[in-house]
C-alpha cells in the first residue's frame, strides 16, 4: 500500500474543479485513472509519482540523470587523486 510508483501521463481530462483534475497514467502498459490535483504543473508526457490514486509530484528528468552523473563525478575525482 505504501509504495508510490512512477507513471507516464497519457491524457488529461478537463473537469470543472481543479480538485478533480484527472489523468490517464500508464505504468509500463497498465493504465489507471489518477487524480492530478496536487500536480497542477503536470502535462501529457510527464512522469508523475503516483500513490493511492493521487500524483504526489512530477519526476524531474534532468535530476533523474544525476544518480549516474554523481557516480561519474566520484570516479572522476578518484582518478584525479590517483594521478596526483
Amino acid at each position, binding site marked *: *500500500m*505504501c*509504495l*508510490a*510508483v*512512477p*507513471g*507516464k501521463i497519457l491524457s488529461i481530462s478537463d473537469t470543472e474543479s481543479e*480538485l478533480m483534475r484527472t489523468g490517464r497514467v*500508464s*505504468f*509500463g*502498459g*497498465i493504465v*489507471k485513472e489518477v*487524480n492530478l*490535483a*496536487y*500536480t*497542477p504543473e503536470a502535462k501529457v508526457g510527464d*512522469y508523475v*509519482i503516483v*500513490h*493511492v*490514486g*493521487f500524483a*504526489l*509530484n512530477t*519526476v*524531474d*528528468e534532468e*535530476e*533523474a540523470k*544525476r*544518480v*549516474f552523473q*554523481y*557516480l561519474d563525478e*566520484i*570516479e572522476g575525482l578518484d582518478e584525479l587523486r590517483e594521478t596526483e
Partner: protein
Amino acid sequence: MLKGRRKSANQNLITISTLDSRLRGDIKWNKLKFIDEYRDKEASLKYSSLINDITTKKWNIMEVCGGQTHSIVKFGIDELLPEGVNLIHGPGCPVCVTSLELIDKSIEIASRENVIFCSFGDMLRVPGSKKDLLQVKAEGGDVRMMYSPLDALKIARENPDKEVVFFAVGFETTAPANAMAVYQAKAQGLKNFSILVSHVLVPPAMEAILSSKSNLVQGFLAAGHVCAVMGYNEYFPLAEKYKVPIVVTGFEPLDILQGIYMCIKQLEEGRHEVENQYARVVNREGNQSAMNIVSTVFKVGTRKWRGIGEIPDSGLVLQDDYIDYDASLKFGLAEMTVEEPKECISGIILQGLKKPHECEAFGKICTPEHPLGATMVSNEGACAAYYRYRKV
C-alpha cells in the same frame, strides 16, 4: 508469486497484488525508462565498491520506510555492504504500526449492519484481538478493498442509505489522498461517509527512536515519498539535535545504495547534515498544494503505534471543522482501548533492536498464511520481507 493470499479474498485483491508486483519489477519492465535505469546492475556494483572503499568503522543506519526495507531484502542490498555496516529496518510501514485498538475498532465497525467498510487491501489480513477484516467479510460483513479513498467516496454517493467508512491509514504519503476524500465529502454535503483515522507521521517516530536509551541508529535514510509531500525542512533540527546524518532516499536499488554511500561518507567525515539523494522527486519545501488540503482537514495529535505505544504529536487527527467525518466518534468507539499481546515482538523489531528471524515465532507459528503480527502481513513489513526473500 505472492505467498499466503487467501482464495476467499476479493478478486480485486489479486488484480492489485499483480499490479503491485509488476510495479515492483518482478517481471521485465522495459517500457519505463526511469525504472530500467535505476535497476542498473553495473552502477549498483560500482556504488557498493565505493561504499567498501570509504568505510573504516562499523555503522548502524536505519532505513525508515518499509518500501525501502522491501527493496533492500529483495535485492540483497544489505549483503553487498561491508561487514559492520548494519541496516536497521525502521517503523515505516503504516500497516505494521496501526495499533491493535484501531484494528479492533475497524472490525467492530465493519461488523455492523448497514455499513460498507472500505480499506486498502493490506489492512484486511492484519490480525485484531479476535479476528481480521477478511473474517468479518466471510461472516457476511460488507468489507471492500479500495485502491484509492476517492473510490470509497463514490460508493458513498451511490449508496445514500448506507454508512460508508474508509480506513484512513498511512504516513504523510496517503494523507493528501485521505484529506481530499474528506474535503470533497464535506464540499458535496455527503453525510454517510466517514473515516477511521490512523495517520502516523514519520519525523516524530524518528525522534522517538533517537531519544530512546537503547537507540543504535547513527544515520537515517529518510523515506523519499514522505518527503515528496512534506519536504525535508523538519529534518534539519533533528540532524542538529541528535548529530545524525539524514539522507532523503528513493526506492530503487541504485537510489538506496547511493543514499547509503552519502550517509556513510558523512559518518566517516564526522558530518551530520540533511542531504537529498532523491532530488528528481523531492524538493525541500514539499508539495504545497497537497499540504494545504492536508492541514485544512487534519491537525497533529497523539497517536498510539503498534508495539511501541503512544508517541506525542505523532499522528494526524481530524480538524474540529471535519469532526463529523470521524468514524470513531460516529460509531461511539472513542473510549475503546485494547492491550497488545506479548508473544509478538514486532515493536522491538520496528525499533531496530532485533531482526525478524530472532523472533521465536518467526516462520514457525507466525507465517504470512497465519500472521501473529502486522509486520508479517504487509509487503512492506520486515517479517514478511524476511520470510519471502530470506530462507533462514
